[in-house]
């Protein structure tokens, strides 16, 4: 399933010139094609009131655009799709929520290559798809070079930080931020000595569990920022375990005990 969606997205982006300045009609057409590539013929409804997507109208750093998705808990959402429509790889992430999830708010950081629509689409337990969109002005995020301290970043590869918010917003629900040190390199930079592309190395899968229950799994891609950050709600059911796999098949695992 994942591979065929990725293939149709590659074909899609190849057919639309990503660098050309787009107008509103272009963007609407692009979204229509993207919807089709990801959801096939399924109806995608307006998610107004159920899902919101927040992002800065004009981003400070196109390689690190913070996005916040809020979801009405009454909607019983099982999946969240996040798109950055005009990126080379527009499906930035797919969250599959498990029993320990509390998907009221998800925050992360994405790369934005050019002025673009972004979409958050939630899938409810009864199979409805609900969408919301946001327009973001940023450019160059996918081809921007790595951060300033290259050696520190590499020496830290795979390390994680996990911080739980001191005051729960709701009884039985914690909110935490997970940071993963990883270049999330998209393979679009050129090595000036060899004139070859610097190989891509990006996170593909993240799995978070609490005790023996899944909080969520995330299918990720090159649109996530370097050193990915994820803020999310969860229902604690034991120690947190995070497992990350990247495109070189490297696996990083770390456990975190929860504060009492």
């Amino acid at each position, binding site marked *: 399933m994942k591979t065929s969606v990725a293939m149709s997205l590659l074909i899609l982006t190849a057919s639309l010139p990503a660098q050309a300045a787009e107008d509103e009609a272009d963007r609407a057409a692009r979204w229509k094609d993207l919807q089709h590539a990801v959801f096939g013929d399924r109806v995608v409804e307006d998610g107004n009131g159920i899902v919101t997507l927040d992002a800065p109208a004009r981003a400070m750093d196109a390689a690190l655009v913070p996005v916040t998705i809020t979801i009405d808990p009454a909607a019983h959402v099982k999946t969240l799709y996040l798109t950055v429509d005009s990126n080379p790889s527009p499906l930035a992430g797919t969250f599959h929520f498990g029993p320990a999830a509390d998907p009221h708010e998800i925050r992360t950081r994405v790369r934005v290559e050019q002025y673009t629509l972004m979409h958050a689409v939630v899938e409810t337990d009864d199979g409805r798809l609900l969408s919301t969109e946001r327009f973001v002005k940023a450019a160059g995020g996918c081809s921007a070079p790595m951060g300033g301290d290259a050696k520190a970043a590499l020496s830290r590869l795979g390390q994680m930080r996990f911080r739980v918010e001191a005051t729960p917003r709701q009884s039985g629900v914690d909110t935490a931020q997970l940071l993963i*040190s990883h270049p999330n390199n998209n393979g679009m930079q050129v090595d000036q000595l060899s004139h070859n592309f610097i190989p891509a190395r990006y996170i593909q899968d993240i799995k978070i569990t609490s005790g023996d229950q899944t909080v969520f799994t995330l299918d990720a891609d090159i649109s996530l920022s370097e050193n990915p*950050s994820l803020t999310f709600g969860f229902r604690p059911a034991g120690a947190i375990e995070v497992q990350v796999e990247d495109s070189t098949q490297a696996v990083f695992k770390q456990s975190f005990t929860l504060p009492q």
Partner: protein
Amino acid sequence: MIAARSACIGRRAALLGATGLIVPRSIQAEPDHAAADLPPLMMTEVAPGIHVRQGVYEDASAANDDAIANIGFIVGNDAVAVIDPGGSRDDGLRLHASIRQNTSLPIRYVILSHMHPDHVFGCAAFTDDDPIFVAHANMLPALVSRGEYYRRVLADLIGLDAAGDYAKPNRAITGLQTIDLGDRVLELRAHGVAHTDNDLSIVDRRTGTLWAADLLFVDRVPSLDGSLVGWIHELDALKALPCSRAIPGHGPASVAWPAAADNEQRYLTTILTETRQMIANGADIEVAVDHVAAGERSQWALFDDYNGRNVTVAFKELEWE
């Protein structure tokens, strides 16, 4: 990286420098890059034999040719060292012309203080002098990963030809090393990660002048592209050097040392303290960007262009503490 020399630039510059004559255009076969048409730069001799061009407090643009950094040269008894050849081909050509107005001594060294394009893309104007390009040992790997990006951004602004190019360093500096321009010893210090991860500073022993380059910003807001904690540390070390005068990478051509470091130290420490506070309070990066160092705004030119980015870099570094 520069693959081949540009013969027509070299011939014109050599003719102008060696003989002092302006050769009529009809004699030259090649189309020229109009080195003679580019007026030399306004240089300030901040100390005997040390010449600085103050850059404008602007972001790179077609109008300013990326002449936004302080660049210049030092003249010894036997040779010249360029300190940062400029932000573009023409910036470099104009610096070259300024040098030749001042001396006909050979340009033996081109010292690259760090990888940012406003300091190094003028390299293209100096290849015919066959100098030794000197840089921090980390500069080449940094350019390997970023050079193409910088070239593209600059070319988008002023065109690919006009952008110029960086040169691959021939001499990589670690720790403290010296070069001698003829009874004029320059100390070269390779710093730990600070403004970037490849900062080099120069001390002229003859006059006690510290060419701090982008380790020092005065009046124009600092830009962070390395490590905030590291920069604060390196700045402390520089303040201890027995120099009475410093040359910032952006700011007046010459400032009193170490007094001129105070404002930058305050700015960097403010970002450090306030960002740590934000992180401790669980604030996210967008909130930090909007609030950290807001009180510094009236103190610095180009504040709105850079402070948000500085806070972003600082936040990314400090959230790993």
